[in-house]
C-alpha cells in the first residue's frame, strides 16, 4: 500500500516555483517563501550547479518535485528510462511531494514540451489510471495529479473534468493538485462557472494549490481566450477564486508559478506574501 504519511508533507503555506536566478536571495532571506517546487526534468543531469543548488535548498526548504515530462495521458506506454530517472531523483531527494499533470506530451518518441489535452472517456480513464498505478509503484509513494488548462474540448468526452479526476483518484489512490488559475482559464475558454468547478472538485483530496498568471487573447469568434502563460502577476479574479477554494476546502500549500519573463525575487516574494495572507485568513 502507498503510505502517504511516510513523507513530511508540504507546509500549508506559500511556496514558489524555483528559478536558479533566485538562489542567493532565497538562501539569504526567503521572506514569505516557505517551500519550493522544482521541475523534475531540470534536475536529471549528472552533476554541476543545478544539483549542487538543489542539495543546498533541500537543507532549508521542503521541496515539491513537479514533473512536466512523463506524459501520463499518453497513448503509448510510459518511458521506462524516464520512470527510472524520476525514481532516482525522488530516492535521493526524498521530496515532500511529487506531482504530475493530467496531460500528454510524448507520442511516437517525440517529446513536444507542452501539456496536451485529453478526451475524458472511459478509455482515457483506464489508461491514465494504469499509468498512475505504474508510477506510484515505481516511486513507492503517492503522487498528486494536476488539472490542466484547456483551450478546446473533445466532442467525444463523456466525463466532466472534476468527476474524471475524482474517479482517477478513487481508482489509484493518488492525491490531487488544484491549479486555480487553470480553472479560471478553462472556465473562461470553455464557458463554465469556475465556482461550480471548485464545488465539484474533490477538495478533500487536494494536497496542493497552484496560482499563476495568464495572458489574454481571443478566438475566431472574438470571444476571450486565456493562455496559461505563467508569465505575469496573478489577476484579482483568480485571487477571488482562490479565496473561494480556501473557504470551501481549507488552507493548502500554495505555489506561485512564474516560469516565463521571470521577475526579480522581491516581485515573486510579494505574490507569495499575498498568498500567505489569504492562507492566514482561513479558519483553522
Amino acid at each position, binding site marked *: 500500500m502507498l503510505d502517504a504519511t511516510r513523507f513530511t508533507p508540504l507546509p500549508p503555506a506559500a511556496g514558489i516555483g524555483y528559478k536558479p536566478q533566485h538562489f542567493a536571495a532565497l538562501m539569504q532571506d526567503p521572506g514569505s517563501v516557505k517551500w519550493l517546487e522544482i521541475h523534475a526534468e531540470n534536475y536529471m543531469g549528472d552533476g554541476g550547479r543545478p544539483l549542487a543548488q538543489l542539495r543546498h535548498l533541500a537543507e532549508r526548504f521542503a521541496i515539491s518535485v513537479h514533473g512536466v515530462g512523463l506524459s501520463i495521458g499518453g497513448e503509448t506506454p510510459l518511458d521506462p528510462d524516464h520512470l527510472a*530517472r524520476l525514481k532516482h531523483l525522488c530516492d535521493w531527494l526524498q521530496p515532500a511531494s511529487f506531482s504530475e499533470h493530467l496531460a500528454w506530451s510524448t507520442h511516437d518518441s517525440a517529446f513536444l514540451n507542452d501539456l496536451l489535452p485529453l478526451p475524458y472517456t472511459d478509455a482515457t480513464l483506464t489508461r491514465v489510471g494504469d499509468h498512475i498505478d505504474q508510477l506510484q509503484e515505481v516511486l513507492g509513494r503517492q503522487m498528486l495529479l494536476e488539472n490542466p488548462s484547456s483551450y478546446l474540448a473533445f466532442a*467525444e468526452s463523456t466525463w466532466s473534468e472534476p468527476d474524471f479526476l475524482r474517479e482517477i483518484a478513487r481508482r489509484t489512490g493518488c492525491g490531487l493538485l488544484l491549479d486555480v488559475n487553470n480553472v479560471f482559464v478553462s472556465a473562461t475558454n470553455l464557458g463554465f462557472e469556475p465556482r461550480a468547478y471548485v464545488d465539484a472538485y474533490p477538495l478533500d483530496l487536494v494536497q496542493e494549490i497552484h496560482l499563476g498568471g495568464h495572458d489574454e487573447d481571443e478566438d475566431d469568434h472574438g470571444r476571450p481566450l486565456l493562455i496559461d502563460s505563467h508569465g505575469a502577476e496573478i489577476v484579482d479574479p483568480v485571487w477571488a477564486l482562490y479565496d473561494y477554494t480556501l473557504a470551501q476546502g481549507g488552507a493548502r500549500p500554495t505555489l506561485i508559478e512564474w516560469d516565463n519573463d521571470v521577475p526579480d525575487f522581491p516581485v515573486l516574494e510579494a505574490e507569495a506574501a499575498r498568498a500567505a495572507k489569504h492562507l492566514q485568513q482561513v479558519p483553522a
Partner: protein
Amino acid sequence: MSVDQTQFRTAMLDPALPVPNGLTDALGAPAGARFNVYRNNVAVSLTEAMEAAFPVILKLVGEEFFRAMAGVYLRIHPPKSPLMMHYGDAFPGFLEGFEPAQHLGYLPDIARLELAMRESYHAADGTPTEPAVLQSLPPDRLMTARIILAPALRLVRSKWPIHGIWAFNMQGAPQPQMQGQDVLITRPDFDPVLTPLPDGGAAFIIALQQGQSFGTALGLATAQAANFDLTTTLGTLISGAAITKISEG
C-alpha cells in the same frame, strides 16, 4: 468522433494541415484557431530552448534568421526525450545541410562547441587531484602513470577559429584570425571555461582520454607538434580542476 494523439501531433507540427475534427469550442463548434495555442506553445517553447542552448549562433545569425531556422529544425527534430538539457544534439548535422546557412561554414562547429559546453555544465562532479601530487611525482613514474580526466572535460576540434568566434561574440574579444582551433572545455567550479589548445594539445588530451600513459600521450603530442607546449597544457588542466586521479600501475 475521436481524435487520437497521432492526428493531434501531426496537425500540431504542421500548420498547413487542418485542425482535427472532433475538437470544439465551448459551444460545440470546431475549435479553429484555438488549436493554434498548442501549435504556438510547442513552437515557441522549443525555439526558446534552442535560443538558450545556442547563444553564439543566435548572435551570429540574428534573431529573425535563428527563429526561422529553429522552426524548420524543431519540425524535423522534435525532442526525443523530456530532458530539454539534451535538446539540439542534432543541430550540428542539421546545420551542415541547411542551405540558407551554407555561407557560414563554421556554424556546425560552433554548435558542437555550444553543445559541449552544455554537456560540461551538466556533467558529473569530479574531485580534482592536488597539483602537488603531480608535481611531486618523479619523472620516470609520471611517464608510466595514467592521468584520469574529469567527467566535465570536453575537447572540440575545428578547422575554424571557434574559440575566437566564441570570444568575439560573447566577450567582445578582437575579430578572430582565420585558423583552425582545438578548444578544451574544463569546469573548475560550475561554469565551463574555454581554452584554445596549443599545437599537439588535442593529441595529448585524446591519448589521455583513451587511457594511454602520460609518456605515450606526450610522445603522440610531440610527434604532431615538435614544439608542443606541455607546461601550458598541464596548467590548463590543473587550473580547470580537470585531473581527478593519477593512476600508477
